[in-house]
């Protein structure tokens, strides 16, 4: 099991509470001695200066989806709302963990089966094993956040865990920096580990303003189309990095898309082309900065996105790292 991937996925960091994952990343990159800053919203932005060269902004988001406690009832059950896109069917039955380690199980009001036919988040509640409100409030409070609980596990050449969206993107960016940072780069490179992507690509928007890049590439997960009766999408695990053509928030700038395709071909990296109908990434926010930024995305195919057990292929991950490094280096 790749320990860095595990550490990254297990760092507690729902949208807006990215301190923990930020520390993991700064610790991991400490030995590279790169300059970095943390901006007003908490984006972690590394800078590898190269005067005279075009500015490239790379972005992978640190935050993961989660829940926020809205109510503690008299029997100690918790009601909650979503932080990021949460499908109630993907929440039901799963465990969530709070910053202080408290664990809860998401269960459903079960008066009648109709509830399950049109399941909504407000019909669910969290059971943290308390017998009463008095006990529950010793462990949690209204306003507390929690994330999917569960270990990161290797299965064959694949890894399954919560939060691969987008800790696997962070991993790709970290590994690319390790491989390339000390060398001569094609760009003045800003590596941004962004915040608050899951509730509206917010960190990327302000981060891009602070950098004012000439070019940008985001690293995020994309969906899949290779499981039984799955949504029609021509992406599969094990077929290499996906180069984004279009998603619901943007059309990848053709020049950047083509740069990625050419680079992949020149380095013998198998790749796929991605058209995603639902969902977007930091790239959409960066692309509209100032007078516009040519932007593309290297996507890691990811099964069961926004569930407690997402799944990526380590070969695809390796391919993404190689592709990014090839873009950075001569």
């Amino acid at each position, binding site marked *: 099991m790749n320990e860095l991937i595990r550490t990254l996925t297990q760092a507690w960091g729902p949208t*807006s509470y990215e301190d923990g994952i930020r520390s993991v990343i700064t610790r991991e990159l400490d030995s590279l001695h790169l300059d970095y800053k943390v*901006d007003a919203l908490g984006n972690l932005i590394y800078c590898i200066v190269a005067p005279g060269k075009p500015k490239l902004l790379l972005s992978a988001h640190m935050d993961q989806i989660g829940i926020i406690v809205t109510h503690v009832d008299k029997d100690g059950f918790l009601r909650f*709302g979503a932080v990021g896109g949460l499908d109630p069917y993907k929440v039901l039955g799963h465990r969530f963990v709070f910053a202080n380690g408290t664990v809860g199980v998401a269960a459903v009001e079960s008066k009648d089966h109709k509830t399950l036919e049109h399941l909504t988040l407000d019909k669910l509640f969290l059971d943290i094993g308390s017998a009463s409100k008095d006990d529950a409030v010793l462990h949690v409070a209204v306003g507390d956040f929690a994330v999917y609980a569960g270990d990161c596990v290797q299965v064959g050449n694949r890894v399954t865990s919560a939060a691969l969206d987008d800790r696997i993107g962070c991993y790709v960016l970290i590994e690319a920096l390790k491989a390339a940072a000390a060398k001569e780069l094609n760009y003045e490179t800003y590596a941004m580990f962004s915040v608050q992507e899951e*509730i*509206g690509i917010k*960190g990327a928007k*302000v981060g891009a303003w602070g950098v004012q890049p000439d070019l940008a590439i985001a690293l995020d997960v994309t969906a899949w189309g290779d499981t039984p009766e799955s949504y029609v999408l021509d992406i599969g695990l094990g077929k290499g990095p996906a180069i984004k053509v279009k998603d619901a928030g943007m059309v990848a700038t053709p020049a950047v898309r083509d740069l990625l395709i050419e680079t992949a071909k020149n380095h013998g990296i198998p790749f796929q082309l991605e058209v995603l109908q639902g969902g977007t990434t930091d790239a959409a926010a960066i692309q509209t900065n100032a007078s516009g930024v040519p932007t593309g995305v290297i996507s890691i195919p990811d099964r069961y996105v926004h569930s407690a057990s997402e799944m990526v292929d380590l070969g695809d991950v390796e391919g993404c790292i190689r592709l990014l490094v090839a873009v950075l280096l001569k």
Partner: protein
Amino acid sequence: MEQTSIELLKKLTEARGISGHEDEVAAILRTELEGHVDRFERDSIKNLFAIKGMDKPGPNVMLNAHMDEVGLYVTHITKEGYLHIGKAGGIDDRLLLGKKVLVGKDRLPGVTAIKAVHLSTHEETSTTVIKADDIVVDVGAKSDKELAGKAAVGDQITFDTAFGTFGDGYLVGKAFDDRVGCAIVAELLKTDWPFSIIGMFSAQEEVGTKGAMVGAWRYPPDISITVEGTIAADIGEVKDYQEVSSLGAGPVLTIKDGGMITDHRLRNQLIEVAKASGLPWQFKRMPAGGTDARSIQLAKAGVRALAVAVPARYIHSPVSLIKISDYENTSALLSKFLAQLATTEA
């Protein structure tokens, strides 16, 4: 509550101003703040800025409230002199029948029509929601010609609701969302703080927090506090976990709403101030709704933003309710927070 505050709130809530028509409210605020701030500015979207102390050291602090209220506007005038309506902001269609309104710049009294019950079937009244598109305002005109110069397409239509006391320590009126915020920000602007304050009374919040977006671009602050009138659903048979906030439980602090997550550290500082001062407070207990803060937060390189609100029942409707103690406590909390900001590093 101070008589002057009550009077200001009465003036502000009875003033008329749907999105795009904020002039009357802006005029009241200018008059109120004349002599208390260094300068006023208005921009192309008609935000009103009231600015003081820009030469002072320390953080640039923005205090923000929006001037526009949810209402209606004239979409068409029929030959018979009836006015068709559109919604200016989000309002439940089911609130619109049989209500008294004021139309256009001359405050023409009118009523939203509701067919006599005898002319409808039981089936109709129990299953059909009449949408705004199908509702007209009757101002007593006999033809469209009579309305020349009095009412025109695009004119604002506001609810004719008087401000007053209600029940046990409540205030009733329209547009507490967000004239209550305007009143509180105006009062805070009357104090001289040791740092710069950008008072941004924004326009067009109700139709997409548009004023705040460009206003914060013009004057991006270090810290921003949006003061709102927010949802309290401690009413009827609403379940306790769906109340969002409760009247009487103090200022409502947003952690997450439908638009953004506030700055955790600033909010925790605010809570520390509340605790130290013995002031009540509550969290917004549902991640729903949205405020100017979501647009301010994303201006340029990002702003550390807070959203604090007076809880209000029945916002976005002809008549709503706040509790006097919540108004006072929200005002006091923000005042003490600013005082504490002056002495510590945020």
